[in-house]
């Protein structure tokens, strides 16, 4: 399997070098991928939860029902 590479461009000399990543960098990349997937999942879940709270708050306002504190927080800047 081909090793992943990065491109380094020396702006003083103009020399471009394609550098193979080290074993340590590849191991770090794999750990990063797991962490990044978790981070994105957290962000998506938080965004979905906020959208659900806002929708619930709006529905209750229209129906004249009391809001929870969490729902009210979504309306107050």
């Amino acid at each position, binding site marked *: 399997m081909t090793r992943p590479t990065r491109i380094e461009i020396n702006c003083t000399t103009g020399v471009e070098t394609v550098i193979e990543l080290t074993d340590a960098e590849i191991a770090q*990349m794999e750990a990063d991928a797991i962490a*990044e997937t978790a981070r994105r999942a957290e962000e998506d879940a938080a965004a979905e939860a906020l959208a659900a709270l806002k929708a619930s708050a709006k529905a209750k306002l229209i129906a004249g029902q009391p809001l929870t504190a969490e729902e009210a927080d979504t309306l107050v800047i």
Partner: protein
Amino acid sequence: MPNTYTLIASSTAGAGGTTAFDFTSIPGTYTDLLLKWSARQDLSAVAASDFIYINGLQSSYSGRWVEGNGPTQPSSYSYTGNFTYANAEGNGANTTASTFANAEIYIPNYTVSSNKSMLSESVMENVSTNAYIVLGVNLWSNTSAITRVTISTSATNVTGGAQKFVQYSTAYLYGIKNS
């Protein structure tokens, strides 16, 4: 480009792609820097963030960005961390085939001995479904002159993440003089 813009260096990813575009030994002979890039990642997602590192460092970044995704009202976010987060929301592998996101970051007064403000913007390309537009105001709390700028696929690693910028992704670094 205006005649005060000088192309310092550029690079295009080859057939195997690249995990990072790393501009090193940037001369201090200009007033401002402008980094522009057109990129697509092989990450299996619609949006694939591109991460910027200054001088190879992973600390003292903060900022705020406004993000629109097309169908819903834009949102704003703050960040502090080890990278200029989501400076660019780029194209992932799940966007329309062969489309690339465009992004840039403008760095005024990159050699002065004070903290560095940076303006960033990015636009994804994606036909028929969501595509993000991001406008960011960023601060690097470091007084060193900037001599290296890296575009990486990793949020935690200057040299890149598990995914790559695909072939034909390109990056251009311009120097701007005030006269």
